[in-house]
């Protein structure tokens, strides 16, 4: 079976500095995969490389067996990969409803249409309503996204990400800056909304990671030093040394 995401020997340099070196990562279809690692390890850069936000210096990224490295972000998105951002990245002046609806439009095949009334597209309306319901923001539908609370914006961020119905979802620290209660709520949301999808998640909160992920990869200085089930990662001496800061010898 082809992997949902296959990163092979990817390197990213900025000038002389190698941010990512010999990155190899394989995520099976339907798997929940977490990437952990200390600050500055290159977790967000890895997401940027996979989603087309930046292009690898060398190596290749495959989505469902097709090479996607070098494609534009919107081309990758159209192939069924969607991502969220660590820093909230919504359409601030548009309402919550409009934010989600925009994310639904391409996937429902309306593209750049300038001959259709957007309010009278039943499938767009239903899907948008469904997503809003899923992320519990129906009661805030007419509020400009920029005026939402932080936690609500994070939820909207997730809503926009899953709205297209992408089969591969990348979430970049979805619970960053949330309180414990909010984190719990968000994780329940993520678990429910990514049911049956392939999920790659960057997360700092270890309880979240070990509770959610099927597999975990540990990224240190732009290189994956270990990849395996939560149990394997917990026991791995390299991980203990590099990530948890314990001396293994």
């Amino acid at each position, binding site marked *: 079976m082809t992997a949902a995401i296959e990163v092979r020997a990817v390197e990213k340099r900025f000038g002389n500095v190698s941010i990512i070196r010999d990155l190899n990562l394989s995520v099976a279809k339907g798997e929940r995969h977490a990437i952990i690692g200390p600050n500055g390890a290159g977790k967000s850069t890895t997401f940027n490389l996979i989603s087309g936000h930046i292009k690898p210096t060398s190596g290749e990224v495959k989505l469902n067996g097709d090479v996607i490295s070098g494609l534009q972000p919107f081309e990758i998105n159209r192939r069924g990969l969607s991502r969220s951002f660590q820093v909230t990245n919504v359409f601030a002046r*548009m309402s919550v409803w409009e934010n989600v609806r925009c994310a639904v439009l391409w996937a429902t095949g309306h593209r*750049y249409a300038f001959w259709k009334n957007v309010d009278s597209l039943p499938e767009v309306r239903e899907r948008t309503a469904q997503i809003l319901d899923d992320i519990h923001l129906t009661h805030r539908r007419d509020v400009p996204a920029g005026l939402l609370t932080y936690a609500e914006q994070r939820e909207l961020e997730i809503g926009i990400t899953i709205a297209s119905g992408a089969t591969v979802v990348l979430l970049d620290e979805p619970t960053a800056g949330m309180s414990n209660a909010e984190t719990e709520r968000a994780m329940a949301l993520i678990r429910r909304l990514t049911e049956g999808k392939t999920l790659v998640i960057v997360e700092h909160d270890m309880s979240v990671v070990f509770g959610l992920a099927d597999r975990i990869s540990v990224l240190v200085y732009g290189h994956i030093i270990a990849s395996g089930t939560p149990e394997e990662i917990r026991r791995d001496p390299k991980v203990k040394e590099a990530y948890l800061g314990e001396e293994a010898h």
Partner: protein
Amino acid sequence: MTTATTSTSNMTGKPAGDGLRFYGVWLIGVISLIVLPMIFSSGGSLTSFSLIGIAIVFALSYNILLGQTGLLSFGHAVHYGLGGFAACHMMNAVVSHGWPIPLPFIPLFGGLGGLMFAVIIGWVMTKRAGTVFAMISLGIGELVASSSLILRSVFGGEAGITTDRTALPKMFGWSFGPQLQVYYLIAFWLVLAAIAMYALTRTPLGRISNAVRDNPERVQFIGYDPHVVRYLAFCFAGFFAGIAGGLAAINFEIANSAYLGAIQSGLVLFSTFIGGTAYFFGPILGAILVTYLQLGLTSVTSVWQLYFGIIFIGIVMFSPGGIAGLLMMHRPLVRAGTLWTVIPSYFVAVVPTVALACGVILTIETVARYSGGEAINLFGIAFNPKSPMTWLSAVVLVFGGAFLARLTWRRIADAWDRAATVARDRGYLA
């Protein structure tokens, strides 16, 4: 089932009564366009109305770029001007070839002229938004404006291209000689273009344009290429600007280099911004005000541009949402029923604010007319620009007005805070 229907009516973003109100507003607009010349039938007002109509179409087309897609163009008059030239050439061709195309169809060719240039140049221009786009638009604007003086066969050099609108085939027996008939032609196209441009905002492209304005980066991750979105918006803006140019060509029976120049581009930016870019009707208000001021002020003072500048700076500093933004600020208060608590503070502020404005006007006119010129006539009171009494009045009005006005403005702010808090409590304000 009940929940399903209520949620569906909510989906369009408007409660049921709003649909009626929506069409009501458009209907009132159309009726006033029809009735206006019957109330104000002098030649002067007909000319003014015609110019305002053209300016509205032009400003609305500009807002497709600025307000809806977030593209600041310094060269929008290029499409307006090319539309004007296209219309003039088309009119002359219709006359000389005897084609059966009556005058009311000519603005469409103006639109095609504006569109054609946008289609050709737009892809390169819209690759980047922001400063890059603004600078390229400025360059293209200058390029085309100077070409118009160099390429004589197309643009007619200094003299421009003249035409005779009455020589075209008649329609409904109208020759379009009288200004009244031209006015109705412009009004017809204004309604058509305004409806089309409004409808455009309600399409998938229109919505995604807003998304590109707010966050072009994120748009890429929901499947859209912001470059394509900007390009399409640019083409539509060019088309409607061309229609406005075509209407101008019909109105003046001439197209010349002034149509495409930086002044025209500046004026449309000015109108749109003053009116307010965040609402569809904003540019309409701006175009009406600016055209009216332009026509009115030029006969009163020689330094009318100075006042334009002051108004512009004032809007940018104190009300970046323009007139429309200022008006719409009150909507939550109206809904919450707290507007009446604010209104009295407005009345208190009127007198000192007007005094301040008079002081500024008096100062400007004194400086402008000190070395020659007529006496200043401010609301029927004559002032001699060389008299110390005038200077003293100006100083008193400016400083006294400013001092008192600041106090009253603070009162407005306080009243606003209270009213907004109540509105927030009642859930009408986020």
